């Protein structure tokens, strides 16, 4: 057990750009965006605060979203502590600040994105088709590359470390977590900037609407989960986390483990896998204080959550989060942000409606699935 304690991975900073006013990190879901809609848009901050002014106009929106969340994460003055910037600099072995970010440079940047930079992809594709392959300019092609978010963050802060981007539907962010844990546990990295970003464009919204992903009629997002129906509401966002091997005054929680299940056959199989996952972490279902579920109000897909809860977590407090961020391939990153903040604050915001009150807040299990295909479990604990 002792060695397990030594190997803990700490979440020492967060930055979350979402359809809720979460970016500032100062309040914790006290002000909320409530809309009767089928599409939740992430709140764009003044990007000039995050991106050099000469780059703001040309930079794709998803890249700006990622940069804003990453920069917030790395300079996160978490509650009741001094700004992380000075702490990072004082930290043993940390590298000098670079690129005017005023913070230490992490050893690695690992990100996930389901659809990547679709705005620029559409722009280049549209111009190519409309102009029959003539008069094209490279900017949108360059920015359409899936690893642009991680690459631009590295470029802006001068990070020469390991830089990976995962692009696999509902496993995009989870793969990035798994890689991060491996890099930290192997000792190859002491600090990692982990993140996810996905943007929603009018066209991608429309295409997914035609595929039957969304509700036909707008709903009040804050009551989405209490009003099941066919389809969900679309969302987007970017969330970043600073993972380190050492506990800091800024520590929010520990990130213990992640598991992905590809096309499980039944809810019994999922339950069995969850139990094994917890066993591997020396826990049982009784140790879980809060089950954070990826419910999205789509009755075709939410039944799995009901079955798994019933099978395995009879008495455990549970709640959803997608009424706040909408559905997208990396929505679990918003869930991780929420879990992280709950563990630090040791309270659950009112808008996150909990079935059964938890007696304590020590371990949170985040269970999410994307369209019944990509199922994932993420385990976090109070530091």
């Amino acid at each position, binding site marked *: 057990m002792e060695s397990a304690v030594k190997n803990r991975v700490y979440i020492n900073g967060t930055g979350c750009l979402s359809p809720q006013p979460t970016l500032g990190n100062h309040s914790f879901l006290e002000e909320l965006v409530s809309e009767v809609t089928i599409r939740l848009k992430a709140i764009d901050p003044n990007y000039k605060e995050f991106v050099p002014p000469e780059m703001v106009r040309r930079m794709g929106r998803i890249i700006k979203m990622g940069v804003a969340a990453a920069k917030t994460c790395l300079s996160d003055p978490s509650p009741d502590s001094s700004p992380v910037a000075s702490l990072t600099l004082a930290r043993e072995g940390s590298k000098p600040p670079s690129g005017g970010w005023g913070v230490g440079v992490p050893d690695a940047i690992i990100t996930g994105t389901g659809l990547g930079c679709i705005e620029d992809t559409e722009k280049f594709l549209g111009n190519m088709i409309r102009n029959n*392959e003539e008069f094209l300019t*490279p900017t949108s092609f360059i920015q359409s*590359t899936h690893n*642009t978010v991680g690459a631009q963050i590295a470029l802006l802060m001068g990070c020469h*470390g390991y830089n990976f981007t995962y692009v696999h539907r509902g496993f*995009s962010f989870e793969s990035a977590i798994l890689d991060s844990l491996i890099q930290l546990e*192997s000792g190859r990295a002491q600090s990692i900037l982990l993140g996810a970003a996905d943007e929603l464009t009018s066209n991608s919204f429309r295409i997914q609407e035609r595929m039957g992903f969304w509700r036909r009629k707008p709903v009040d997002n804050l009551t989405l989960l209490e009003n099941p129906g066919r389809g969900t509401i679309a969302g987007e966002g970017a969330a970043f986390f600073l993972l380190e091997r050492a506990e800091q005054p800024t520590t929010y929680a520990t990130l213990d483990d992640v598991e992905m299940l590809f096309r499980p056959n039944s809810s019994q199989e999922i339950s069995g896998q969850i139990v094994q996952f917890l066993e591997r972490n020396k826990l049982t279902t009784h140790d879980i204080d809060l089950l954070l579920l990826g419910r999205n109000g789509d009755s075709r897909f939410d039944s799995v959550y009901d079955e798994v809860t019933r099978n395995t977590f009879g008495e455990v407090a549970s709640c959803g989060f997608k009424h706040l961020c909408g559905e997208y391939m990396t929505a679990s990153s918003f869930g991780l942000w929420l879990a992280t903040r709950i563990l630090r604050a040791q309270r659950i915001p009112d808008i996150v409606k909990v079935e059964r009150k938890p007696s304590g807040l020590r371990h949170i299990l985040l269970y999410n699935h994307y369209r019944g295909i990509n199922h994932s479990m993420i385990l976090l604990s109070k530091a």
Partner: protein
Amino acid sequence: MPKRIYITGIGIISAIGDNVSSVFSSLETCKSGIGEITLFPTLHQGILPVAEVKLTKDQLLAMTGNSDSCEFTRTTLLGMIAAREAVESAGIGDMTTWHSGLLSATTVGGMDRSEVFYGEFLENPSHGRLRNIVNHDCGDSTERIASFLGINGLVSTLSTACSSSANSIMFGADLIRSGKLDRVVAGGTDSVTRFTLNGFNTLMILDKRGCHPFDEHRAGLTLGEGAAFLVLESEKVVEKEGKKPLAELTGYGNANDAYHQTASSPEGKGAFLAMTKALEMSGLYPGDIDYINVHGTGTENNDLSEGIALERIFNPVPPFSSTKTYTGHALGAAGAVEAVISILSIKHGMMFPDLNWSTPMKELKIRPVTNIVRDLSIRHVLSNSFGFGGNNSTLIFSKIN
């Protein structure tokens, strides 16, 4: 204590052959796969050469026992063919006997179908067949390849531009080292599309004569397509099953140039760091490397930057060549394609030449291998793959002792 990572199977499909033996025979007879575009109508036909897999979609469908043209993108079919060959060559009957996973890599996923959809959709947002867009995202091809192979363990996809599949091999090795998996099928797949052809053309880095890597008069890269996969297995699997591995992955490293979104730094910082990390992990000295399969795209910028990094690390620089003169630059598949070629170098004791080279670069002292070299003892091959976003990766493959 680092655990060893064995390569027990390889599979490939590229412009120079649709399996390992036909690719090897083209390499050995110096037969390039670069030629005219036939896959789709484009303004660039007859002007910009590409390295296409010489099979139509119907032929690829037939090779995989499928008939539904909408369900499978070209990227998916290429991946299925190469991954199946890798699994068969590793002598694997059942993918569920060990903790197994599939890691693929691609840069544009199902773009070949999305292009068709998007034209109709732009005219009218209720037009365009949805069957042509559901395969757009990068994860689609991977999930279909996984189902084709019967893999139900970890399935994921990387996309870091032209280093994508070198990185999927790296992550596969890390998953085995960490004990999460015993066996990983890792590689990548990409097809030539109008999107990428026009994209690279706007950057003015496509050589109308076909690529001339490390040549003073180089004028850009040549796009290629294909897929390649390696079967990586742990020591435990190899020992228990009494397997004879093809090679060992002894070192790997990824670093970021952090210089420019598309251009490499003049001093080749990212390349230098990636190669240094890989050498450190392998415990090898630069002098131990017998052959380098360079990234060598043939762009002015890459070859200079990579060449400078090579001269900084190696003294003397070992024999090197860019096999992109055979296969074209297969983007997300390039790292895995070149990994297979590196393993063939070790296996056959051969170095494959840089086909189009004639004039040394004035900034560098080094020159690539320009003739086929046989009967060598090649113990260690270093393979570079560099991508947009300053993403630099190095893999080192070694002969089994």
